[in-house]
């Protein structure tokens, strides 16, 4: 038995070493750097918690953090409700529904950068097809400038593109969860004379709660850490109003070379994500009891 434990540990070692060297060590280094003032050119200088107090008083950081939260709060319900409704639509195994499932999942496998470039083109007021189409059907009389001039408009345009890109993931997870509900459960409720929507609300939804919570967690973390779509589609414009928290970290770390400050911001964001994860895990655990 003892030998068995040792062999098991041996199989675990490569992954442990990899994470130790390429994730834990850089993370520890980042935490250390966050207590320093450092611009790559000059050697790091220890300044204690100054970077953190500076972050607390940095208006743009609060704007970015609030913006990331706002984006998360706006997009998550759309993804969850939309994904679940599509799942209910296509859950049965007919040819048409299988095909729809396959197609809805397609955008999920293409890259976020690539899909952002694609939508950057579609939303372009001069060369893009969205304004062209809206003009042709007479819904608008002059092209709308979607990205980079109006913060709300930019946010909704980006949300549309991301919903298109990732809604298939939630759908697939929900479809598999709904399909794994034993048929007897559904038959029993049919006997009760429950309508389709009553059954969905009272039986299907509670029985798939774990999956709903898991997908919500993945979606919330992904949205809080959003970067690529904003980097490509708005570059934070107008006036850094659409600069997400991670975008602001990127700006500080690379173009501005404030490595210490960027590291402190990263630590704060990681702490926020950790808090969300813990809350979610507690909810999941409670729902399984």
């Amino acid at each position, binding site marked *: 038995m003892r030998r068995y434990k040792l062999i098991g*540990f041996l*199989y675990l070692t490569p*992954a442990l070493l*990899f*994470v130790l060297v390429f994730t834990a060590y850089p993370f520890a280094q980042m935490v250390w750097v966050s207590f320093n003032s450092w611009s790559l050119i000059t050697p790091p200088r220890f300044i204690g918690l100054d970077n953190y107090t500076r972050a607390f008083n940095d208006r743009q950081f609060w704007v970015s953090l609030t913006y990331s939260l706002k984006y998360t709060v706006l997009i998550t319900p759309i993804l969850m409700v939309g994904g679940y409704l599509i799942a209910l639509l296509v859950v049965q195994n007919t040819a048409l529904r299988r095909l729809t499932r396959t197609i809805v999942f*397609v955008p999920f*496998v293409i890259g976020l950068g690539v899909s952002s470039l694609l939508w950057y083109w579609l939303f372009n007021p001069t060369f893009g097809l969205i304004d062209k189409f809206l003009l042709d059907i007479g819904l608008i009389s002059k092209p709308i400038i979607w990205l980079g001039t109006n913060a709300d408009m930019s946010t909704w345009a980006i949300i549309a593109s991301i919903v298109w890109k990732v809604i298939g993931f939630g759908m697939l997870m929900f479809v*598999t969860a709904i399909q794994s509900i034993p048929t007897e459960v559904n038959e029993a409720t049919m006997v009760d004379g429950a309508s*389709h929507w009553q059954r969905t609300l009272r039986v299907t939804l509670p029985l798939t709660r774990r999956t709903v919570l898991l997908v919500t967690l993945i979606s919330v973390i992904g949205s809080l850490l959003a970067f690529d779509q904003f980097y490509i589609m708005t570059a934070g414009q107008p006036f850094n109003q659409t600069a997400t928290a991670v975008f602001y970290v990127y700006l500080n770390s690379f173009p501005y070379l404030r490595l210490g400050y960027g590291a402190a911001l*990263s630590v704060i964001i990681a702490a926020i994500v950790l808090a969300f994860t813990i809350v979610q895990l507690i909810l999941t655990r409670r729902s399984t009891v």
Partner: protein
Amino acid sequence: MSVQTVESTAREVSRTGGRAGRLFAGRNRYLTAAVCLALSTIMVLPILVSVLASLKTTAEAAAVPPTYFPSTISLDSYARLWTYQAGLLHYVGNSLGTALLTIALALGLTIPAGYALGRFPIPGKELFFVFLLMALIIPYQALLTPMFLMFVQLKLTNTIVGLAILHTTIQLPFSLYIMRNSFEAVPNELEEAALIDGGGPWQVLTKVFLPALTPAIVTVALFAFITSWNELLGSLVINSKESAFTLPVILAAARTETSLGGTDWGMLQAGVTISIIPCIGVYLLLQKYYVSGLLSGALK
């Protein structure tokens, strides 16, 4: 009323209920079909118009107002992309090399780790698991600076190996999650039979688990490929030499490239198309495995 009668009545009712349901579905069948088709159209249309735009002539790709469909099919945009900077093949080669190495690393690390976590009584196993999932909560964009400094020391900047390591760290938590759950899902009897036959852990792994885990392996490989093939920022930060650039980096650069006084939209669409094709191709080819891999891994 005996239990059996209740059950059979229930079955009877449910059958009629089912029939009523089908009837109901019958009336709504056209509506459902219409919604399915509309949904599919919305999902496919952006990709379709982009692929079509890549086939426009140089002049038409830059036309104002734009056209929906190319009036003549032309490979001009692809020709420009083919010879862009060091040539398309060079960047595709970098991307492909990095992606294959990422797949190898992800599988090489998570198959043994999943085996260990799913099948061995290791003390403090959950702690190790959480430690290995650590990258999940750290924005990897934040780790780029320390990673870059480390890679400079290890002489891994501007190499495929360095980038593949970075991509593996991003992909590791998900891969491990899938692997561990899939190892746990294999019935005990299979393993016991092999152990009784006198096989050691290595034989059990290769003879029993690997064949049973094909869906999980395909899923991990596929996601590793997609992540690596598409990753932009890390590649931008870690590589400074143009010869080491990957496809997404060149594509982002091509956005600012000009032709006829603006972004070269045609070439950009050609690049988008070429990036998308392998992703959709492997997804459709391996769909069968992939869905059941996700199922066994994610829904435990």
